[in-house]
C-alpha cells in the first residue's frame, strides 16, 4: 500500500539523493558564523577576530562606506538585480587557525578535501597547497625548496600578520577599495585568499595552486589575492573553484591584484566551476612594468552569473599582456566574461583570445576593452573573440571597446559567431562518429587553443567538465 508523504517528508526526500545528484555537502560545523547582512559591527568583528593592525581596520571601514554609498551596477546583466546583499553571511570561521600539516586539518574538512583529491594532487605536482574552506585557509603548506628560494606563498591573513610591510606597500594599489561596488565589498569583508611574493630573479618552476570552496548556504566568499613578482622572476598561480549546489544564492566576490616588476612574468590560471546558484562577481587586475609579461588564463564554466574581466595595465615599455578566456553558458547561466588591456607605454604588445559556448538557453557575452594611450607608440594588439551557439534558444553578445589615442600602432580585431552546423555534424557522422561524440569533438576543437595553455591536470578537468556540460545536448 502506498504511503502518502507529508510535505516535509517530500522536501526531505528531495535532498536525500543530494550526494548523488550534486556532489557532496558536509554538515555545517563552524566556530563562528556572522548573522546575515553587512553592518559596521560585522566588519569590526572580522578585523577583531583576525587581530589586525589599525590601518587594515580603518581600510575595511572606509571600504564599507564606499560600498554602502554606491548603487548596484545596472549594466552587464539583468541577473544583477537578483543579488541580495542583506541575505548573505559575510564571515564564517571554520576552525581556530590555519593547519600547518595535513594531520592538523579537522576531520570533516579533510573529508571534503579528499573528495576534491587535494592530497593526491599535491603528491603529484603541487608546489604548495592553499585550500580555502569557507572564509579562511585551513591548510596551507609551502614546499621547502620554495621557502629556501625566499618565495612567500601563504594565505592572505598570514601574509598580513607575517609580512605586514610588504602587504601594506602593495595592498589595494592595483584595485583601490572604491574602484567599484564589489571591490569595495571585498575590501570591507575580505578573508583568506593568497599572498605570493617572488624575489628578484627567482623562477618558480611548479605552478602554485590553491583550491577554493564554498560550503555554507548563503555564504559570501571574499578572498583577496596579491601576487608580487620582483624583477626578472616568474610564477604561475592556478586557482580552481568548485562548490556544491544549494537552493538559494551565494555570492563570490574576489579581488586579485598582480604586480609584475621589470622583466618579470606572472601567469594566472583559473578554472571556475561554481554551482549554478553562485553569483561570481570578481575584480582581477594586473600591472606590468617594463619588459614584464602578465597572462590571464580564465575558464568559466559554472555560476549563475559571472561578471569578470581580468585586466592588464602595460605601464612599462615593451610590457606584454595576454588574456585567454573560455566561457560555457548552460541553462539559466550568464557568462559575462572578457578582458581589458591598457597600453600605457611605448612598444607594448598584447593578445586577447576569448571563446564562448552557449547551450540550452544560456547566454555568453564577451565584454572587452583595448585602450592605447597617447604616447604608447609602436603598440601592437590583437583581439579575437569567437562564440559558438549550440542551439536556437541560446544567446551570444559581443561588447568590444577599442580606444586608440596614438597613430603609430597596430591593432587587429576579429569576431565570429557560429553554430554547430548540420554539415559539420554530417561530415563527422559520415565517418562513423555518433552525433553526440561529433558535437563534443567540435566543441573541444573550438576551445583547444585555450585548453592547450592549461596545466595538464586542468586541461583534463576542463575537457571532462565540458563533456559533462555537453551531455544530453543532442536530441
Amino acid at each position, binding site marked *: 500500500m502506498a504511503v502518502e508523504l507529508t510535505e516535509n517528508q517530500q522536501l526531505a526526500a528531495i535532498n536525500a539523493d543530494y550526494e548523488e545528484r550534486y556532489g557532496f555537502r558536509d554538515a555545517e560545523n563552524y566556530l563562528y558564523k556572522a548573522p546575515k547582512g553587512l553592518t559596521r559591527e560585522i566588519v569590526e568583528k572580522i578585523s577583531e577576530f583576525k587581530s589586525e593592525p589599525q590601518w587594515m581596520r580603518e581600510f575595511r571601514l572606509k571600504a564599507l562606506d564606499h560600498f554602502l554609498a554606491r548603487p548596484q551596477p545596472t549594466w552587464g546583466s539583468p541577473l544583477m538585480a537578483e543579488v541580495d546583499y542583506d541575505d548573505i553571511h559575510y564571515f564564517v570561521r571554520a576552525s581556530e587557525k590555519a593547519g600547518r600539516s595535513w594531520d592538523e586539518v579537522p576531520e570533516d574538512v579533510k573529508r571534503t578535501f579528499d573528495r576534491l583529491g587535494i592530497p593526491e594532487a599535491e603528491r603529484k605536482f603541487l608546489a604548495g597547497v592553499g585550500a580555502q574552506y569557507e572564509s579562511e585557509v585551513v591548510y596551507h603548506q609551502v614546499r621547502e625548496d620554495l621557502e629556501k628560494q625566499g618565495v612567500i606563498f601563504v594565505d592572505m591573513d598570514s601574509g598580513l600578520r607575517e609580512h605586514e610591510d610588504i602587504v601594506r606597500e602593495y595592498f589595494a594599489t592595483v584595485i583601490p577599495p572604491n574602484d567599484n561596488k564589489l571591490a569595495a565589498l571585498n575590501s570591507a569583508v575580505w578573508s583568506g585568499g593568497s599572498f605570493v611574493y617572488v624575489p628578484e630573479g627567482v623562477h618558480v618552476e611548479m605552478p602554485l595552486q590553491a583550491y577554493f570552496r564554498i560550503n555554507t548556504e548563503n555564504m559570501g566568499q571574499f578572498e583577496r589575492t596579491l601576487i608580487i613578482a620582483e624583477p626578472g622572476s616568474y610564477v604561475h598561480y592556478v586557482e580552481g573553484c568548485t562548490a556544491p549546489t544549494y537552493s538559494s544564492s551565494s555570492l563570490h566576490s574576489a579581488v586579485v591584484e598582480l604586480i609584475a616588476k621589470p622583466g618579470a612574468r606572472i601567469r594566472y590560471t583559473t578554472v571556475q566551476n561554481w554551482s549554478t546558484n553562485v553569483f561570481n562577481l570578481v575584480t582581477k*587586475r594586473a600591472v606590468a612594468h617594463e619588459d614584464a609579461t602578465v597572462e590571464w588564463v580564465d575558464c568559466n564554466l559554472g555560476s549563475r552569473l559571472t561578471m569578470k574581466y581580468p585586466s592588464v595595465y602595460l605601464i612599462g615599455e615593451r610590457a606584454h599582456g595576454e588574456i585567454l578566456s573560455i566561457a560555457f553558458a548552460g541553462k539559466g547561466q550568464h557568462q559575462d566574461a572578457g578582458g581589458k588591456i591598457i597600453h600605457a607605454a611605448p612598444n607594448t604588445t598584447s593578445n586577447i583570445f576569448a571563446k564562448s559556448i552557449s547551450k540550452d538557453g544560456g547566454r555568453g557575452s564577451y565584454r572587452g576593452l583595448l585602450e592605447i594611450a597617447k604616447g604608447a607608440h609602436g603598440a601592437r594588439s590583437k583581439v579575437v573573440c569567437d562564440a559558438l551557439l549550440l542551439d536556437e534558444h541560446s544567446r551570444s553578445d559581443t561588447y568590444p571597446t577599442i580606444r586608440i589615442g596614438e597613430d603609430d600602432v597596430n591593432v587587429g580585431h576579429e569576431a565570429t559567431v557560429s553554430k554547430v552546423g548540420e554539415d559539420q555534424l554530417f561530415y563527422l557522422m559520415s565517418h562513423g562518429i555518433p552525433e553526440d561524440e561529433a558535437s563534443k569533438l567540435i566543441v573541444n576543437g573550438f576551445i583547444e587553443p585555450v585548453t592547450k595553455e592549461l596545466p595538464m591536470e586542468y586541461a583534463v578537468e576542463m575537457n571532462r567538465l565540458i563533456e559533462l556540460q555537453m551531455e544530453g545536448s543532442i536530441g
Partner: protein
Amino acid sequence: MPQVIEVCPVDELKPGDMRLVEWEDLEIGVFNCAGTVYAIEDRCSHDDGPLVEGTLDEENCTIECPRHGSLFDLKTGKPKTLPAYVPVDTYPVIIEDQTIKLEVE
C-alpha cells in the same frame, strides 16, 4: 605666457582644507597639506573625477579620487595607484603678501 592668479588669503585655507579655483578653461584643485600648499589639475586622468571632492591624506600628501579611488601625489601629480596611470598637471604655488597665488598658463 605664464600668469599669476590670486586664490585667497593664507588663513582662509587651513591645513586639511582644499578648494577649487577656476581660471579660463582650467579647473585647479588647491590643497593645504599639513601647512604646505599644492595645486594640481582638478580632473582625474582616468575618468575626469573631481579631485577636490576626494579625500586628502595629509600624512602621505595624496588626494584620493572620489570616483574610482586613484591616489594622486600632490607634489608631482603622478598617480600612486591604478586605475589612473597618466599624471595630472601641477601648478607652482606662490605665497606672497599673506596671499596664496598660482602660476598658470
